[in-house]
């Protein structure tokens, strides 16, 4: 190990750079698609969780507890290996003809992340003064319309910073998708390592990309906080 020859050119140019670059692309696609779907699902679960209807509220609560408290890797394996057994053959055939690994990863990441987002949205909603709901109901809006036009637009604004944190978690969590063969960044780094034995360089490159994604997004959130929410960092 002492006379290990560093060779950064392996990962900064040529075929292996292309592999890593394609991994970055898949990681970003996986994360972006999942965060959008997770947001929509999270919104739905949050509204259900706050519903006046007891069974609806209970279903949302069970969903939250279940998906937040089981390991993400197990959930990924469940959708990839387990869902086969319960789906009709026709659906399976169709899934196999598409990129099923990618789809399973999106489903797992979406559902897992939606549970956290739902809780973030709920605490956003709880921080809106109850007088806003009263004003909306007094105008004649139903509960759901009040949520739609008055409460959620305010709550989601407050939820943006925690939402971005969920996105950062999601980008990192997406590396688990390599276990079912999704060719994202970590998968590609592993490939480069097994072809070139340049594991140090390959995983350093992957690490740098994950950190870069985090830094860029964190910087964007800070700008948002200052410009939109007028929150300034304590001196």
């Amino acid at each position, binding site marked *: 190990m002492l006379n290990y020859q560093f060779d950064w050119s392996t990962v900064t140019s040529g075929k292996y750079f292309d592999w890593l670059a394609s991994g970055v692309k898949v990681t970003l696609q996986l994360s972006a698609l999942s965060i959008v779907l997770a947001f929509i699902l999270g919104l739905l679960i949050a509204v259900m969780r706050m519903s006046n209807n007891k069974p609806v509220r209970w279903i949302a609560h069970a969903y939250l507890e279940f998906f937040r408290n089981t390991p993400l890797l197990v959930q990924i394996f469940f959708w990839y290996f387990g869902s086969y057994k319960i789906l009709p053959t026709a659906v399976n055939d169709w899934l196999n003809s598409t990129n099923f690994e990618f789809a399973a990863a999106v489903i797992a990441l979406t559902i897992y992340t939606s549970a956290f987002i739902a809780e973030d949205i709920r605490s956003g909603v709880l921080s809106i003064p109850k*007088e806003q709901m*009263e*004003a909306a*109901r*007094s*105008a*004649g*809006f139903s509960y759901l*319309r009040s949520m739609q036009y008055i409460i959620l637009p*305010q709550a989601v604004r407050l939820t943006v910073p925690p939402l971005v944190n969920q996105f950062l978690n999601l980008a990192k969590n997406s590396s688990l998708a390599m276990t079912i063969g999704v060719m994202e960044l970590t998968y590609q780094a592993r490939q480069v390592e097994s072809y070139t034995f340049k594991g140090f360089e390959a995983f350093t490159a992957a690490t740098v990309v994950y950190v870069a994604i985090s830094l860029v997004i964190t910087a964007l959130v800070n700008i948002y906080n200052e410009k939109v929410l007028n929150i300034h960092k304590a001196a």
Partner: protein
Amino acid sequence: MITFQGVHKWFKSLHVLNDINLHVTSGEVLVVCGPSGSGKSTLIRTINQLEPIDKGTLTVDGMDLLDKKTDINKLRAEVGFVFQQFNLYPHLSVLNNIILAPTKIRKTAKRDAEEQAMALLERVGLAEKRNAYPSQLSGGQQQRVAIARALAMKPRIMLFDEPTSALDPEMIGEVLAVMKDLAVSGMTMVVVTHEMGFAREVAHRVAFMDAGTVLEEATPDEFFSRPKHERAQQFLRQLLTPMHCECP
């Protein structure tokens, strides 16, 4: 227009409304006053069912509030409510605060709603603030926008719960002026307020509440010059002594 018959309400063991009997006819202005905690807010909030009642009958604009078939959202669209703390929607501009309910509930075309909103803003003297956000307005301006917002639904009844209690003294007049204008135009109004000048000038009747009951109901003249109950006399004396102002 509004009829309370033997209305009761409890918050747990607290008997907050005790046998309320009141009648407000079309075009009438009823002022409700009384010490803090006497149940004034609860009373006015039952009229658009922000607080449901437990016993008795309450009819508003011909709708029976205890009837399961009454569409409560429809009733609320006909009844404007103005809060002590204004409760404008902070994420919307003044104009959008006003047109939200007309466009979404009444399905008024956006352009028509905006035209009507501008007319209302003229009426409350805030046309130039149409693009401002609530946080950029003074309390008095916010309350006038809140009144315009309620009027945009063309309500048949307007309810005010201490609309000037949260305002700096110099802003009270501008809000009372808008309310007076509204009363003169023939709007049916129930107003919880301690502004006795407004009550004298504008109200057709005054109801005095104490401990969940309407102790006294009279014309402003009778009430202010010859209050019958000891509690009402005491209340009026305290109002005239600024040190003991009950206004929260």
